């Protein structure tokens, strides 16, 4: 039901906060979704992400969550939320916005494509750590999906889009069907740690079995939409199959906590001999190899020329 929303901001424009007078120069559009648009902006010589909301109430709900989180995690890291304000567009309309830390990263699928799937256990572990922090503070992420995870250097992942974040025990505010526990007849839409772990599991299946996963979603009748169908994909995938037990526990909601799920993730991957598994050499290694081979050849040629 996304209605296109356009606050009419183009690169180079400067917007000024109505209440706090901070000014932000629009650099480019970073992304958009159901609730608004996110821009890369420059402010005090730094880069930030600025989200303009299509609905003041929805945006404020998101801000409330970010503010509570900031209070809870005080001192532990630099705050994610930077500023909250409104701006008046030259056309006279007022739009609410908030400013947050700019997360430099790429989508999970792109990251693994570029850096090689050897990184996936670590990326998964980092992401479970992020979720565990959130869960321990009494929140559930809710709308965990491909677009809402950005991965930076060395597999460090970061969650973006806090519109789905819900206090434990309440109904999940926003979700995407294919990652939703209720959609797969595997439990309720009440926010608990298991809800996010379920989506996490679906996300990793989608990552490694993209085609078969989407086929499954399109062909299964609602009454046959059960986790067992997802587990079948896990079992036949060489990357995922060592984690079969992990996935089955995530789907059944059997992890007592997200820390436990993270520990089990590590344990099962290492038991399965991830260290010994010889993955196809990633591109950087091939490149390095070619470069050194080239260097060797040149050296030899030079040596011959010089007549050593």
């Amino acid at each position: 039901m996304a209605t296109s929303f356009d606050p009419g901001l183009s690169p180079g424009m400067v917007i000024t906060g109505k209440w706090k007078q901070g000014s932000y120069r629009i650099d480019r559009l970073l992304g958009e979704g159901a609730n608004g648009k996110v821009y890369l902006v420059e402010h005090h010589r730094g880069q930030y992400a600025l989200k303009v909301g299509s609905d003041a109430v929805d945006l404020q709900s998101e801000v409330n969550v970010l503010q509570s989180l900031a209070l809870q995690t005080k001192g532990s890291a630099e705050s994610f939320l930077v500023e909250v304000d409104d701006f008046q567009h030259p056309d006279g309309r007022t739009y609410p916005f908030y400013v947050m830390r700019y997360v430099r990263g790429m989508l999970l699928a792109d990251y693994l494509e570029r850096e090689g799937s050897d990184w996936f256990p670590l990326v998964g572990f980092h992401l479970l750590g992020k979720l565990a922090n959130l869960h321990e503070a009494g929140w559930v992420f809710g709308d965990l999906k491909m677009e809402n995870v950005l991965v930076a250097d060395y597999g460090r992942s970061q969650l973006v889009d806090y519109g789905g974040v819900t206090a434990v025990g309440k109904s999940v505010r926003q979700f995407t069907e294919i990652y939703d526990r209720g959609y797969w007849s595997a439990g309720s839409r009440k926010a608990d740690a298991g809800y996010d772990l379920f989506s996490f599991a679906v996300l990793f299946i989608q990552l490694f079995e993209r085609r078969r996963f989407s086929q499954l979603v399109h062909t299964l009748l609602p009454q046959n939409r059960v986790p067992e169908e997802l587990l079948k994909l896990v079992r036949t995938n060489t990357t995922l199959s060592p984690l079969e037990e992990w996935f089955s526990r995530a789907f059944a909601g059997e992890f007592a906590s997200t820390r436990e799920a993270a520990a089990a993730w590590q344990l099962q991957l290492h038991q399965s001999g991830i260290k010994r598994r010889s993955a196809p050499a990633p591109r950087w290694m091939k490149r390095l190899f070619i470069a050194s081979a080239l260097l060797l050849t040149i050296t030899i040629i030079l040596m011959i020329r010089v007549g050593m």
Partner: protein
Amino acid sequence: MKQIILITDGCSNVGVSPVVAAAHAQAEGITVNVVGVLDDGDIGEFGAAEINEIAAAGGGLSRLVHMRELARTVQMMTRKTVMHTIQNAVHKELQQVLGTSSIESLPPGKRGDVVRMMDELGETAPLRVALLIDASASMKPKLQAVEEAIRDLMISLQARQGKSEISVFHFPGPRYGDDCCMDLGWTSTLSGIPALFAKLQMQGTTPTGPALLEVIDFYRKDDYGRKNRDGTDGMKSGYVV
């Protein structure tokens, strides 16, 4: 909070205008949302216009969607309408207390408090949703998707902290001249939903307006019964729009 979700695929053709009926609902504090559901065909210009008009008169939303999107649409409409109902009530309060009628005109700090209260109400206020299903012949291939959407809505409502119930009606009724038939009375469990429409006889006419009036009547009788029993309609009157 009271809602009706009308799921249809065409124009009404007998009895009182559904737009008039929806305006009645709105006058009694019931919001009417309308989903026009398509398969690969088209709903036609008149169908689309009627859907928009019914929703406008009923203070609700209207959407034209493919069967595949039905569950998601019904779920989101219900949620949006809950927030909208609360927002309207809050606007009135703001007007009285602060002399300003919009949340946007509050400074960000105050806005945070107001929205926190709204979110809390959205989660906890009692909610009833009556689903009214067009069971004219052309809807037959879509009923499975309708059933799935009802099941999905129930899953969402069950996750709320406040009491949440649905009821299901279809129209026209089984006998000649029946405008509407109740399939499921107020419930908060999934048990009655599978095979909801298994035995349904599809009829030719589409008495959308009369059926809407019957559902309003159902709400009315029910409220009357409850008022007599415990003297409350389940929600503090200040919040009802």
